[in-house]
């Protein structure tokens, strides 16, 4: 798209009226600026990594030129170990973890502040490389800004005290503007917690209030592997249990790229799906397919639809909604009228079939998205302790190449022990 086209579309989007709740979401900065496809994320990270590498090398060069000890850039260059794209990701994930633990266990901040701080940290590193700013420093500022933004203000002094000797109020404030700029000044984040709470309600609404006689679920018999349909009642305790467990998974979803690839309601439902698949599938089926039908005569135990298993089979049992009742009434009408009535009935049936088809498609798509979300959540990998240490050291030297060279100088002075130490350093 050309810039002009882009701008026009931007202008149009601004003026487009909102007709659904989803449209309203599409107007949010989280959707507009901070939602990506996997490819887009990768592209960004590659770009950021190249930018970081360049910066680190430049710093080294500048230092070499200024330094009296006659360190040549060309020779020193090999010493400097640059951080790769994957390593960057691991490093960020590591500090996201640190941030989460800090904010929940040490600072005891509300989930909203925690999640916003993490979002800031992750977003920051889509714009800057770890080789430009050390995550240890950035996370303090993220906490500070998130607390301010979410009406939970913490003074820099207080925060610095919690975070240890290396963090000072000045270092927190120093990075504030850089952070805000990297975020493009967007600070309103949407997290899965409130959506989870909403589903706590809607699950009750659909599974208990709407269907007091219970819902139909499909269970696999462990021994025979056969799929059986049975009607069960889902009570509020089960929903509550699911909610509490899902909330833990919501914390996990903050790590990795889940928040960039999926929307908060999707993440919330994915968490529910993970902790209680049977209940969540029942909810989805009833909410998006069965309850959408106009004739809800389901209570009498008539034959009902079955939900989709999207990957394995195409055994889509089409629903057998019956229209028996209406046909008997026609007996007293004339032949012509009967014919017309039949035609109208047929059209109506067709429409209903089409509608049903749409609902099923929507349901399938939703399940697919949710499973994909679960996969993303599961695939998040933090570094092992050793990896973390190695990468961290690399980062440190990339940001402060002068320290690396000073160390080398020291080793040179030590003479013979040099090689042994070098091996140890790079191990």
């Amino acid at each position: 798209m050309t810039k002009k086209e882009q701008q026009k579309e931007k202008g149009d989007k601004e003026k487009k009226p909102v007709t659904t709740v989803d449209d309203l979401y599409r107007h949010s900065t989280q959707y507009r600026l901070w939602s990506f496809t996997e490819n887009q994320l990768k592209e960004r990270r590659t770009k950021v990594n190249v930018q970081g590498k360049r910066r680190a090398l430049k710093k080294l060069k500048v230092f070499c030129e200024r330094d009296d000890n006659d360190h040549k850039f060309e020779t020193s260059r090999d010493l400097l170990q640059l951080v790769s794209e994957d390593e960057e990701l691991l490093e960020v994930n590591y500090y996201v973890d640190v941030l989460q633990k800090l904010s929940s266990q040490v600072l005891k901040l509300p989930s909203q502040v925690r999640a916003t701080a993490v979002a800031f940290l992750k977003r920051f590193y889509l714009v800057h490389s770890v080789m430009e700013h050390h995550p240890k420093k950035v996370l303090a500022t993220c906490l500070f800004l998130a607390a301010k933004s979410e009406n939970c203000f913490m003074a820099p002094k207080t925060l610095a005290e919690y975070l240890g000797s290396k963090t000072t109020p000045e270092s927190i404030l120093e990075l504030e503007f850089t952070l805000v700029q990297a975020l493009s000044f967007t600070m309103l984040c949407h997290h899965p917690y409130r959506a989870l709470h909403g589903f706590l309600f809607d699950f009750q609404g659909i599974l208990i209030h709407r269907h007091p006689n219970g819902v139909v679920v499909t269970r696999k018999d462990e021994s025979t592997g056969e799929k059986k349909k049975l009607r069960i009642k889902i009570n509020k305790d089960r929903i509550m249990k699911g909610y509490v467990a899902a909330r833990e998974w919501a914390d996990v979803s903050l790590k990795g790229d889940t928040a960039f690839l999926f929307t908060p309601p999707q993440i919330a439902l994915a968490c529910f799906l993970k902790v209680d698949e049977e209940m969540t599938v029942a909810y989805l089926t009833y909410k998006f397919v069965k309850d959408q039908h106009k004739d809800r005569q389901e209570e009498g135990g008539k034959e009902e639809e079955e939900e989709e298993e999207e990957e394995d089979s195409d055994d889509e049992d089409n629903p057998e909604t019956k229209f028996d009742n209406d046909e008997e009434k026609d007996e007293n009408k004339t032949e012509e009228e009967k014919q017309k009535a039949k035609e109208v009935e047929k059209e109506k049936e067709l429409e209903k079939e089409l509608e049903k088809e749409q609902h099923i498609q929507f349901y399938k798509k939703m399940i697919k998205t949710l499973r994909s979300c679960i996969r993303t959540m599961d695939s998040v990998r933090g570094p092992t302790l050793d990896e973390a240490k190695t990468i961290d050291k690399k980062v440190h030297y990339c940001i402060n190449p002068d320290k690396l060279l000073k160390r080398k100088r020291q080793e040179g002075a030590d003479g013979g022990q040099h090689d042994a130490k070098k091996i140890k350093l790079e191990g």
Partner: protein
Amino acid sequence: MTEVADSYLEDINNDVCPICKTDKYLNSNMKFLINPECYHKICDSCVDRIFSSGPTKCPYQGCEKILRKNKFKSQIFEDISIEKEIDIRNSIVKIFNKTEKDFKTLEEFNAYLEKIEEIIYNILNGVQVKETNEYIANYKQENSKSIHQNNINIQRQHDIFLKIENKKKLINDEKQKLSKQLIRELQNDKKIANQQITNNLLNSSLDTNLIVENARKNLLKQSSARRKKYIEQTKLLQEKFMSQEDLEMMNYSNPGLPGFRKHRLMQQQATMMSPFSPFNGDRSVNLPFEVEEEYFDPYTSNVIKDAQYLAGGIRVEQIYKKSLFEAFFGLDCIIKEEKSA
């Protein structure tokens, strides 16, 4: 130039004539007059002094207009621009005096009214003055007969209107007289009745209660008779003063100024206009969820019963609605599809 104008304004605001500097405070009979040529305020004694011997230039510095004494009048409206507009309107309407009857369709009449407004606007704001004046002169020439006729009609109607108003006033006066009379009579009756009661109590041997009861009944009869008479008399009044012709005239709607008519026409038009959306098409009408009355929720159950929350206007339905809203806020946005552009 502007300094002078400012000083004039200051004077007027302080109730001082800018020409002779007489202060209203000292001379309480002083009145400001204005002339429709230039609308400059001058006190009545200055007008007398300067213009009695014939038309001459306006004494305001910079104003070159020649003014006549008989054109001076008191300002009616506080806002001079309204005064100007009314004067212009009055003079235009004397020329452009067609009524709805003179047009075949409503649209034509409306167009005519629009034209009048345009002319008034132009003169008021000094827009296209020459063309407008030419247009007026032309119209005057072409329609001189109908203008004259219409003016006569309007005058006639106005006279009839005044006549009817007079008659109405007479009727009202008579009515007032009759009602005053009624009140007097009723009071008198009461007095007499009371006297009779006293008399009877002293002189007759009848039971006291009976006496009072009888007197009361009589009084009631009397008063109702009087009231009946009053009503009949008032009815007759109308017949006495107004002829059949007058009654017909009364029902005939008063033509009034063209502006008023236009207002009513616009009223009719408004109802025929396209439907109006207060949200401008920008509203989520069908929510993807329903809010039930009650949900099991340990996180808010104690909060919502707290008087502090209730007093602040917080209701549990809103809390439910908000959470449900967040649950569907972007549920159907499949980023993978939507962002791959």
